[in-house]
């Protein structure tokens, strides 16, 4: 029971991070109908910017830790969003009316280029960060000394994610930007005829997705304390799996899918084998797609001739 609870906590933390990345995939897919293959790289860039800003602030010193972290978070979100914007501008906009495969190849190319850009400029070695947020709550103790631990960092991750997701859902539901996004998702041509600035809406969608990915990167740097230029690939695939699992195009679906993938991974590595934890996520994905191709919360897609 205690062990189960601990895995549940770990899984929820991991799932929150996957969920944040998955939203970027699901929004882009919803609005332009393609996989933003470089989104994992955007998350990696967010993690690197966070680490660099933390180190920069450390060398300059000053202020309380919380304020400093908040500044880092804002810097990472802004700069990563800029990368997201530039990505759309360079790799997607020229190809918007082209065959889908062309856009996918362009995205894969961008993903390779961004990964290598970081590798070239930052080196291939692991980058580490000493834990900043320390301390934890002991929730439960078993007789043999096994304690269930909920660290402050984990609380921080889960709270941040919940707050962001709430703000984000509100934004989609209530603001004019959210309305424009939903309109573009339904019918881009019609939306543009009715005066929605489609280019701007799509750009902002990429920006929002990148900002959320930056938050995920920031949290990962603080939580694990180790990053390298390669983290984007696997995290990206799993987050995409999460988006598909939840039903691609659906934002609550992405959150749900992220949580599920995180939990599956945590329980799989806790109870079966840690080597095959990546296989578990894909196996689940295949099963879901076979039995429920639209995902858990997705709308069925009617194919018209």
């Amino acid at each position, binding site marked *: 029971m205690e062990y189960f609870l601990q895995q549940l906590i770990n899984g929820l933390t991991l799932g929150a991070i996957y969920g944040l990345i998955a939203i970027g995939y699901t929004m882009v897919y919803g609005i332009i109908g393609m996989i933003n293959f470089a989104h994992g790289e955007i998350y990696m860039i967010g993690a690197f910017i966070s680490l660099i800003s933390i180190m920069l602030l450390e060398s300059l010193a000053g202020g309380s830790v919380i304020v400093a972290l908040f500044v880092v978070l804002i810097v990472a979100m802004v700069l990563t969003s800029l990368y997201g914007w530039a990505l759309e501008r360079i790799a997607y*906009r020229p190809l918007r009316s082209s065959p889908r495969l062309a856009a996918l190849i362009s995205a894969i190319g961008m993903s390779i280029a961004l990964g290598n850009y970081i590798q070239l400029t930052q080196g291939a070695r692991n980058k580490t960060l000493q834990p900043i947020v320390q301390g934890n709550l002991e929730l439960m103790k078993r007789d043999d000394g096994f304690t269930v631990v909920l660290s402050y960092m984990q609380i921080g991750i889960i709270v941040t994610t919940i707050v962001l997701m709430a703000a984000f859902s509100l934004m989609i539901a209530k603001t004019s930007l959210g309305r424009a996004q939903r309109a573009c998702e339904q019918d881009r041509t019609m939306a543009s005829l009715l005066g929605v600035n489609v280019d701007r809406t799509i750009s902002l969608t990429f920006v929002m997705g990148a900002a959320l990915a930056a938050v995920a990167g920031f949290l990962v740097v603080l939580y694990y304390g180790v990053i390298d230029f390669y983290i984007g690939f696997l995290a990206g695939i799993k987050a995409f799996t999460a988006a598909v699992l939840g039903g691609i195009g659906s934002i609550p679906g992405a959150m749900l899918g992220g949580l599920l993938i995180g939990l599956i991974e945590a329980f799989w590595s806790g109870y079966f084998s840690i080597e095959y934890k990546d296989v578990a996520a894909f196996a689940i994905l295949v099963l879901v797609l076979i039995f429920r191709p639209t995902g858990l919360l997705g709308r069925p897609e009617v194919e018209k001739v």
Partner: protein
Amino acid sequence: MPSTGKRTQASILPDSGHRRLPPGAIFKEAGLTAVVSLALLVPFVGFKIANRGGEQFLETRLPEVLIAAGLIFLGRIFLILVREGSLALPVAGGAVISVIGLFAPIPSAFIQAVAFTAGLVIIVRAAFMVFAARRRSSTGREFGNGFADGYRKALPWLASALIVFAFILPLMPFGERRTIDIAILVLTYIMLGWGLNIVVGLAGLLDLGYVAFYAVGAYSYALLASYFDFSFWVCLPLAGLFAGFFGIILGFPVLRLRGDYLAIVTLGFGEMIRVILLNWVSLTKGPDGVSGIPRPSFFGLEFKRYPAEGTESFHQFFGLDYSSLHRVVFLYYLILILALITNFFTRRIRTLPIGRAWEALREDEIACRSLGINPRNTKLSAFAIGAMFGGFAGAFFATRQGFVSPESFTFLESAIILAIVVLGGMGSQMGVVIAAVVLIGLPEYIRDLQEYRMLAFGAGMVLIMSWRPRGLLSQRDPTISLARAEGKTS
């Protein structure tokens, strides 16, 4: 959309460029680009997380960022000028920047690279403008069609010439060891490209995990040879068979999915195979890989200086002096023939009912189903046959390297193979050849670029796609049609 608006504006001929932007607007646009790129470059080029002696600290390289942003500003101005129709100044400026990047004694390799590429981009863009302008002004007829007709007529000659060239390559004066090694590599990718072309180009199934079948082929030869002492020639068909079998197993559950879903699931399968190879240590030796894989023999004649007791070696049998080149040349011909078989097979099967069903399925699945084609079996056959050729190529890879490890079968390989197919123009056999030479051969030759190779590779994929979204040689006409349809698109 504004982007298309720009395109039409850009069609002004070089000599009639009256509609000039005011200098202020040009500076504003270029300034904006420079500011954005400055913000993009500062975090990664401006700062580096360096490790020295176990310590981790920040290194600053701010001057480089500023110079790069300045260069981008300048380059952007030239690009705008090209767009506005003036050519002489930008081309001269681009050339100067390029030359400075190449030869000036700048201490930073980064600045050199930026300067060189910036200059090159400007010149290429200008050349492209001239090309586009001439294309529009030459005849009323679309230039592309004339080119396509000419290409179609020249294709058989071109193909035969290429094949003849490929066969005499080792005999040519420049056919030295390095050239042949690169040629073997390029041919391996050509074969993989042709194999994947069956799946992606003909049947229209987006497969992002093709490397899985390559891995299955390589490992089945490696394991059969090291556990049971099977020879290469026995294993080659077996490897293809195994890979095809895997194609069916993997394909069966996923082929009802469409488009992007299929892509992501195949990607997942590709990763799964790699993770299994990595972790099934008792069979595959895990990350250490399988080494000591036997080399192929020429009808039982080994390529060894001193053959084992009672056997004869290749050079003894033919009375030649021993040379390590013999084996390389033999491998070269082996992969050449394997690749040509793939090509021949594909071209023949395209005209058979099954091949036509693939192409029909690619164009319209619902129509196919209405006409009584079983989509699942048809897709499955394309998947399995594509996988089989991947398996052949894998067995060849194993015997050439003498060593296989899961590291050779990452997602990047799948992406490269897919890029070769798509960049070449889906369904086009010649396109695969051109794309493989450009993507694999060229970077191998330019070793100086080694560091920047993958960066250039990724950027090249983006650029070629935005330049020609349908691939270098786009040809998507059905192999067989009732009458020549004009302007057929998807």
